[in-house]
């Protein structure tokens, strides 16, 4: 039986009503999508897999579509460079002359800073690895500011990694796929970045509002910022490293303080992703929330020689042998500084017990240890010298160098 001969032959569907019905159905689905999406949250929430898959597909397609646009952009750059070459040359010559003095000052300050760091034994941040990536596309509207870059998990990029260009901070990675990543820019309405004013060290939060110049909120102190102050990341919260250049402070017409971004409105389409591990990635939450004295039960066992010497002095109090205990998971979360602390306590007690008869080798080691300590911390040596002047007759027992290793705590992930 043909369709036209059937019972629906004369059925007339009102087009307006069916279209309205379709609008309602599609609108309901759209509302569900809006409710369940969390675009400003890390990758695990919302439709991150959808966005990641879309980015992976559109990244190469967008690159092809963008080629003619880039050609036009390069052509306009060429025209602009041609007509502005003389002015730019004069400006650059002046800038080079100014920067020469700055460079000399920088070298001197770096030298002094390096000596101070060695003197104070400051735990400096290690150099951070970087990955270069090309910008594929960007959204510049008032409601969202994001960029798509052509590098992802295959290049070890993770959610939260900061993104910079040759001028300063651009944003941070909020979604990542194997070959593409989504970067939330500092100007996005969902962006909140802890920053500081370089001149006064005042803290603030950089809040994006979709415009070119994000706002400085929660600025502490009075007169803590003025026009032209350099703004950089503070590193508070551990999400970003401290000291990334952000921009220059400027007062807006409405009285609020805003930041002219160094990375804003640049035509460079290459960025670098800092493979920076924040504190939450370095530590397990359990180890952060552990009881304060948890480390007391996880001190390393004394060495066999140390045990023998202790038992020689105090035969009535046998000491547990070191080889018996296997490391527990709690032991593995112990930081090296805690372990050092426990070791030094045991060593101090042992040194007190062994004070009467140090042999010549021990004397030599003790002398070496004293020299090493004196080189590392002269202020401590000066304090000890003053104390010895006050009490010249009482000689403190020397501590052996081999039981108090002086090692810096490595700034790496704690073994899992």
């Amino acid at each position, binding site marked *: 039986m043909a369709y036209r001969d059937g019972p629906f032959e004369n059925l007339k569907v009102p087009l307006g009503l069916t279209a309205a019905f379709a609008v309602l159905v599609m609108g309901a689905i759209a509302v*569900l999508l809006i409710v369940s999406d969390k675009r400003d949250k890390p990758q695990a929430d*919302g439709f991150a897999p959808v966005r990641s898959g879309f980015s992976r597909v559109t990244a190469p397609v967008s690159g092809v579509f963008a080629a003619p646009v880039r050609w036009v952009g390069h052509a306009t750059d060429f025209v602009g460079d041609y007509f502005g070459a003389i002015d730019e040359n004069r400006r650059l010559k002046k800038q080079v002359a100014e920067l020469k003095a700055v460079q000399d000052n920088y070298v001197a300050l770096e030298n002094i800073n390096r000596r101070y760091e060695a003197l104070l034994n400051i735990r400096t941040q290690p150099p951070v690895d970087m990955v270069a990536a090309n910008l594929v596309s960007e*959204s510049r509207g008032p409601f969202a500011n994001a960029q798509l870059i052509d590098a992802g998990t295959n290049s070890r990029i993770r959610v939260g990694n900061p993104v910079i260009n040759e001028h300063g901070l651009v944003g941070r990675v909020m979604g990542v796929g194997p070959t593409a990543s989504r970067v939330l820019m500092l100007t996005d309405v969902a962006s909140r970045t802890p920053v500081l004013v370089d001149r006064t060290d005042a803290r603030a939060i950089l809040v994006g509002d979709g415009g070119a110049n994000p706002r400085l909120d929660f600025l502490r102190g009075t007169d803590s910022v003025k026009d032209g102050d350099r703004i950089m990341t503070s590193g508070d919260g551990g999400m970003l490293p401290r000291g990334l250049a952000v921009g220059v402070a400027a007062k807006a017409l409405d009285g609020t303080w805003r930041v002219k971004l160094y990375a804003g409105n640049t035509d460079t389409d290459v960025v670098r992703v800092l493979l920076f591990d924040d504190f939450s990635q370095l530590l397990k939450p359990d180890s952060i929330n552990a009881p304060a004295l948890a480390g007391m039960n996880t001190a390393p066992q004394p060495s066999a020689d140390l045990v023998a010497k202790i038992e020689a002095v105090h035969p009535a109090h046998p000491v547990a042998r070191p080889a018996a205990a296997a490391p527990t998971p709690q032991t593995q979360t112990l930081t090296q500084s805690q372990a050092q602390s426990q070791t030094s306590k045991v060593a101090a007690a042992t040194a007190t017990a062994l004070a009467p008869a140090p042999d010549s080798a021990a004397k030599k080691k003790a002398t070496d240890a004293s020299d090493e300590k004196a080189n590392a911390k002269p202020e401590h040596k000066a304090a000890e010298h003053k104390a010895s002047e006050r009490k010249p007759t009482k000689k403190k027992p020397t501590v052996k160098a081999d039981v108090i290793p002086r090692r810096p705590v490595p700034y790496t992930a704690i073994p899992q």
Partner: protein
Amino acid sequence: MRRPASRRHGAAVRVVGPLHWVIYPALAAMAATLVLSTHVRLFGLPPPEPIFGLILAFSWPLIRPSILGPVMLFLVGIFTDLVLDSTLGLWTLTLLAVYGVVLAARAFIVGQQVGVLFAWYAGLTTAAMLCLYLFTLVEAGVAPTIVGAILQWIPTVALFPLGYILIQRFDDTDVRFR
């Protein structure tokens, strides 16, 4: 039965269907959105970022009410949300709302002069941007920049000639619905 759109003697028979006034414009809108999302500076300025889907949401119900229109508008909206990285479904709902309003007021708009059509389009675009502005204000807790909203509104409204051409080109040409 389909009837040819062109009745000139000797001309090939050309059937105008939803492929021409729904699918192709939707694909063109998606491609244009993708091209203008390129990171490029022309004489130091970024290219504009209009919402091409609003043209379709305004034109399609005037050309012909159809189930295919809202469905394609949904896809265009999702694509726009993903490219512009806005909340998924936000531009989708906005486009569908504009389509619904034009569908409801179709009897008042169809056959009017160009100025009236433009006034309707500009008004609807303004309302859509205002709704998005308020939604973003509530969702993010930060008032988006008004200047940025205006800078997106202007090129979007400037797309009206494309919508008018679309309406004139396909209005009442899908003869299956006569």
